[in-house]
């Protein structure tokens, strides 16, 4: 079909294919077109992808196996009380699906992902893997200096394995491309907040996650094209409850879960499903004459968003969430934590307290990436949306 609707569908179909590409065929294709280029996987949450791009590497965010992978060997390494994403990640690695990756980075998210990095070294001693210790001290001269050294070390490791040396010019350009992606994401957020029926959360999720294994520029183009098409397509207004979805998402919920929330009458107008893309708030500024690596580090220190794996410093827990709810004019918050996810579940009581203080309603449940049952969630979300509508009228 021609026209804007067709354009939207075509972008979504491409995004869906990218999201479902567990065997990393797109990465294989990229490598075929970039002889000598390294594909570097990384666990979710924050990794400074522009640095990898500046070295000519393809950054590949790894989001586990979803609900379509049989977990056998992955389960054999983990006790029942550990979340699901490390199981499927190991399964994918042991079945050869991650073969195109030349290395994997494990950023500091939690103890499980940290230890997964150690397991990687034991299981694949001949493959490059590294732990990226993100600073919890946000003083540029202390935590910042450490972080710049840490990034320099990793850049050196990549270079030793054939990546291009990290040049300021290339990094500056990569940051510019990253900024273009960020601007497009922000535009999508704004559109969702304004007209949630125009871009459904499930669509936004696919389009955002599609960038996992794309260079920033290509992802930015996809986002821009989708938004242009979405702005023109015919849509039907829906009177739904406006919610913010919070989950400190590293392990991703099944796609069906996002759809279930929509069907239950919740318009997700903001979410942290793609946490890594939101870890820095706004543009990464590289002042004229500044060292772009310092600037990249500084953006993390000074523009870092509140996330569970980041120390709050002298700030107040939950303030950022309350602000986000107010800015987006949301009616309430849905907490969806991965089972056994320490960052999400330890953070949640503090966030709930802040919401209570601000009079913002919320509901919460847990999931695993391979959850197959949505009945309970459907009922709970439905009841929540009904209650919020009622509550909204009363107040």
């Amino acid at each position, binding site marked *: 079909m021609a026209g804007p609707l067709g354009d939207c569908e075509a972008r979504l179909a491409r995004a869906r294919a990218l999201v479902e590409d567990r065997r990393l065929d797109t990465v294989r294709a990229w490598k075929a077109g970039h002889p000598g280029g390294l594909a570097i996987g990384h666990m979710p949450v924050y990794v400074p992808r522009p640095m990898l791009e500046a070295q000519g590497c393809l950054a590949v965010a790894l989001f586990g196996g979803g*609900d*379509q992978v*049989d*977990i*056998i*060997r*992955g*389960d*054999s*390494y983990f*006790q*029942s009380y550990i979340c699901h994403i490390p199981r499927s990640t190991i399964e994918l690695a042991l079945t050869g699906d991650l073969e195109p990756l030349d290395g994997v980075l494990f950023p500091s998210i939690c103890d499980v992902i940290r230890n997964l990095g150690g397991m990687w070294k034991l299981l694949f001693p001949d493959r490059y893997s590294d732990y990226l210790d993100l600073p919890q001290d946000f003083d540029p001269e202390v935590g910042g200096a450490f972080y710049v050294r840490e990034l320099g070390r990793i850049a050196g490791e990549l270079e030793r394995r054939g990546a291009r040396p990290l040049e300021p010019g290339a990094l500056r350009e990569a940051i510019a491309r990253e900024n273009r992606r960020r601007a497009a994401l922000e535009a999508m957020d704004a559109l969702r907040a304004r007209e949630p029926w125009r871009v459904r959360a499930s669509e936004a999720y696919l389009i955002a996650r599609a960038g996992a294994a794309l260079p920033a520029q290509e992802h930015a183009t996809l986002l821009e094209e989708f938004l242009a098409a979405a702005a023109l397509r015919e849509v039907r207004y829906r009177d739904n409850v406006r919610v913010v979805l919070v989950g400190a998402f590293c392990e991703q919920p099944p796609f069906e879960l996002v759809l279930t929330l929509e069907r239950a009458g919740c318009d997700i107008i903001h979410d942290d499903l793609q946490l890594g893309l939101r870890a820095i708030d706004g543009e990464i500024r590289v002042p004229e004459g500044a060292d772009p690596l310092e600037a990249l580090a500084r953006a993390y220190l000074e523009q870092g968003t509140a996330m569970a794996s980041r120390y709050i410093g002298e700030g107040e827990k939950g303030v950022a969430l309350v602000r986000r709810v107010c800015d987006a004019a949301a009616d309430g918050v849905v907490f969806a934590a991965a089972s056994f996810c320490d960052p999400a579940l330890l953070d949640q009581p503090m966030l709930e307290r802040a919401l209570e203080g601000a009079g913002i309603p919320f509901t919460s449940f847990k999931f*695993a990436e*391979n*959850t*197959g*049952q949505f*009945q*309970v969630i459907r009922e709970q979300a439905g009841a929540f949306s009904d209650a919020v509508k009622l509550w909204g009228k009363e107040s």
Partner: protein
Amino acid sequence: MRCVVGIDLGSTTTKAVLLDESGGTVGRGITNSRSNYEVASAVARDEALTAARFHRLERALGATGREAPALGPALREAFRLELHLDQIEGLGEEIARQLATPLYAQHARELGRPLAEVMDLARAEAPGLFRDGAERRSDFFRDLAGAAFLSGAERIARRDGLPFERMLGIFDRAILEVEARPAHRDFGRLLHRAASRVAPTTTPAADGRPPGNGARGRLLEEVARAAAEPILEVAFVGTGYGRSTLPFPREAVRSEILCHGRGAHRVFPGTRTVLDIGGQDTKAIQVDAQGVVSTFQMNDRCAAGCGRYLGYIADELNLGLHELGPLALKARRSVKVNSTCTVFAGAELRERLALGQDRSDILAGLHRAIMLRAMSLLARSGGVSDEFTFTGGVSKNVMATRVLRELVVQHYGEGITLNAHPDSIYMGALGAALYALDDVREGRPSVLPTFMPREDGRGG
């Protein structure tokens, strides 16, 4: 005859195996586990002794007359019938006793006669259950008596307008009592009664001579001799689930892991990997060429993916456990099921049925989910080596075995022989008996449990 005994007290059933001194199996017994572990063990051991005596008796009868081979099975069934009648008698007495307690003071008058009538019906229907070649739902008294009581009580309650639920309540209390009580099984007396029931009194003998005291007398004579023949149990090893509460002397307890590995290796000497899925746990065991365990892994705390899970599913679908596998085999496609959590099993099943998914397809998915978990445990224990032996209650499930075979081929290639044996439920008890035999051979003193008094060898 001198024997060694192995008993495996499982969460669902208790098994006993009797070996002679050369290591040959002479008798096996099984019963339902119950709150009183000692009674469960004693009953399983009685069953094994009974089997051993029949084994000998049939050999003896075979040597004495041509009519005997056909007589063996009939005599066995008659023996079971006599035992069953005794147990019905005991149950009837217990029901009367329950009625006499203050709890039922108000109902004793109203229910006394009808309940006695229900027991009469059960008694009358008993011979049909033990006719040669008859199909029984179960061999356990609890199940047989329960079925008989249910149908009888339903009929009489309807006829007389009586409270059926209350009658059932009395039965439930009585059967619990009866099953937890130590019972003395007088083999000689039961056998004599059984022999009297089946002995040829009217049928002419094969050689055309008129039937008479000759054949009957000879049979009864053989029977009496078999009953009197001493079986001396010289050593004992016990094993089982939750072994800290086993009713066995501490020195006589061996790990179920060791016993299962050894038993499986004895039946299939090429065994290197054993998967045992029982009611409450799953074990992946690696054994060396001698059958000694080299490593093992057990499922973690929760019973997800064990036999109990299938039990819940069967209950939820109102099916017998044995019906699940065949039904799953009919699946056209396997629904993807990710959770093997017993707590959520019912909810997941209901949700899928509500979505209109086919029952067989869902069951196929559930079986696959269980076996995927088992595969993980195997991987955790070091993988699957040739030969691979599948034991425990779940190994009798055809779908479970089929899925396991597929997964093994998929992950470990075609070269693995998968052994599954219809008697795999006895592997633990067999291994225990083999350890008892080691004790005898190495001259280690054996300590018998209290329910196995070392006496004249006449058995209980």
